[in-house]
């Protein structure tokens, strides 16, 4: 029964990883940038929600709304101010600038907020603590289900946006061929900035859930980036639904690893990632298309 529990908890954890990963996936799909500051931007989002909750005493879920808007702006500005320039400078430069950005964000957070570990778990009322008890060993936390539902909603929403909304179709067109997209009148700079905005906002959403379901501190970012990346690679680069599958595979690997010995949790996730990499480079649902 413990194993069943581990798998169920792993699937719920996978929802969180999928949410963390989908911004990374989108940005890579559209701009071919791996944003090495993705994890730190998520943690920045968590801190912003924390500040809002601390000052106004509202629920984190309410505080999230302005933070998402703000972080969309941050992503937009980041693309216009920094990434656009670095994209023009070659393949290596975006990696180097986003790595530099990660170091800057991390240390600024450290300077402003001190290395204390924080959590928003206590501020959300019943959702974080209650669960549905299925049997003696198996309990499903309401928060886990909520996060998985949010992840599916965000992925589904992005999918609909990319396939149906004019702005989303423009994004896909730009991802496939910038020059041709420009020829038919698409403003690729605006498309890129919008994609970066969405990516950073969703990262902040994941960061807020990190703060609610667990704890965070200024140095939490790199680990979150690695988990997000593992979910994307396991699921297959360029596939949004693959990201969900990848997140769940990663989550289940970690909870099963933890079932063997709590120390093996993260290691098990890394090993599954490396195995997928060794056996099948393109991931489980890997697509050749830019974004599907």
């Amino acid at each position, binding site marked *: 029964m413990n194993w069943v529990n581990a798998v169920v908890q792993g699937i719920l954890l996978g929802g969180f990883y999928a949410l963390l990963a989908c911004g990374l996936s989108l940005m*890579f799909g559209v701009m*071919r*940038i*791996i944003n*090495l500051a993705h994890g730190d931007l998520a943690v920045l989002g968590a801190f912003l929600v924390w500040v809002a909750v601390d000052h106004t005493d509202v629920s984190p879920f309410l505080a999230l709304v302005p933070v998402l808007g703000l972080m969309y702006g941050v992503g937009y500005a980041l693309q216009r101010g*920094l990434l656009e*320039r*670095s994209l023009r*400078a*070659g*393949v*290596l*430069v*975006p*990696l*180097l*600038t986003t*790595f*530099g*950005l*990660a*170091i*800057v964000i*991390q*240390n*600024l957070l*450290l*300077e402003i907020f001190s290395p204390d570990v924080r959590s928003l778990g206590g501020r959300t009322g019943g959702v974080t603590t209650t669960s549905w008890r299925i049997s003696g060993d198996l309990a499903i936390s309401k928060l886990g289900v909520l996060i998985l539902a949010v992840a599916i909603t965000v992925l589904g929403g992005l999918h609909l946006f990319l396939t149906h909304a004019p702005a989303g179709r423009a994004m896909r067109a730009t991802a496939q061929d910038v020059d041709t997209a420009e020829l038919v009148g698409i403003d690729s700079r605006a498309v890129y900035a919008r994609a970066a905005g969405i990516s950073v906002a969703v990262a902040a959403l994941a960061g807020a859930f990190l703060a609610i379901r667990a704890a965070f501190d200024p140095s939490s970012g*790199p680990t979150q*980036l*690695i988990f997000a*990346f*593992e979910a994307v*690679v396991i699921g297959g*680069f360029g596939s949004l639904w693959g990201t969900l599958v990848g997140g769940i595979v990663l989550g289940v690997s970690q909870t099963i690893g933890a079932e063997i010995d709590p*120390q093996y949790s*993260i*290691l098990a996730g*890394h*090993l599954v*990632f*490396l195995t997928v*990499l*060794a056996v099948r*480079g393109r991931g489980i649902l890997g697509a050749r298309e830019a974004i599907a």
Partner: protein
Amino acid sequence: MLLVALAFVPVLLGANATQKLTLLFVLVILAAMWNALAGYGGLVSVGQQAYIGLGAYGTIYLANHNVAPYPALLLATVFAGAVGLPVSYLVLRMRGGQFAIATWVVAEVFAIVVSLDKSLGAGTGTSLIELNRYTPDERRAYTYWLALGAMTFLLALLFVLLRSRLGASLQAIRDDEEAAASVGVRVMAGKRILYVVAALGCGAAGAITLSNTLFIQPGSIFGIQWTAYMIFMVLVGGLGTFEGPILGAIILFLVQDWFADRGVWYLVGLGLTAILFALLLPHGLWGALEERFSLRLLPVGYRVRGLPSRARAAEGDA
């Protein structure tokens, strides 16, 4: 000349200078290795700390198994290089940013495995007590000569590699991988050699760091800050130039000396400087100097950059 002069430092100058110069040599090694990967192979690694940690912990492991400390340092370095070979088959399947994070995951895996091993001090760290059989002066001098020797050897190795046919093919790979492959350059083999050499060099840097500081923890020896230092040194000094990383290492060494006590702001400054150099001066200070004075101390040759002037093209044949 410079080498001979440097070799006498432990005899002539104090303990402090010896230890500091050892640190500088470690930085030069790290910068040169990272530059070999990124500047010549087009491979941005954010996981070279994997091999820094392996070099250090390999030494501890061997010393625990009755190998004398200095031979243990050498063996651990070779071990780190040897581990790089199988790992290269895994990470070189990826390109660009994917390669970057994959190398990072490898470093994390090594760090976790080490911190699970109680005989290696687990998460709290361990020290190389076997070095206590030497007096502090002897120890500093030996470590210093080892660092000087390792740096000289590794720079010479890179120089020879880059001057060889491989150097030309590597730069072809960096500039356009598909085009290089289409004219028969063995892309994978070239990248693999660079990756293994970089693993070896970073292993040496880790082993020397251990014998210089005597104490290590998995959290710091496998830490991402090493990558931040490497990127800073290479970007400021000059990505893809042979001399640039050496210049960058000297700059970081001085910056550390002056600002390290500012803690957090120091790292913020490093990050911002790296971003500015990446965007505004992509070939770093050395690249700018070279451009200005057509200076070339150690020509690794065959270089045709983005805007090949006539002079450059002619020089390539020299």
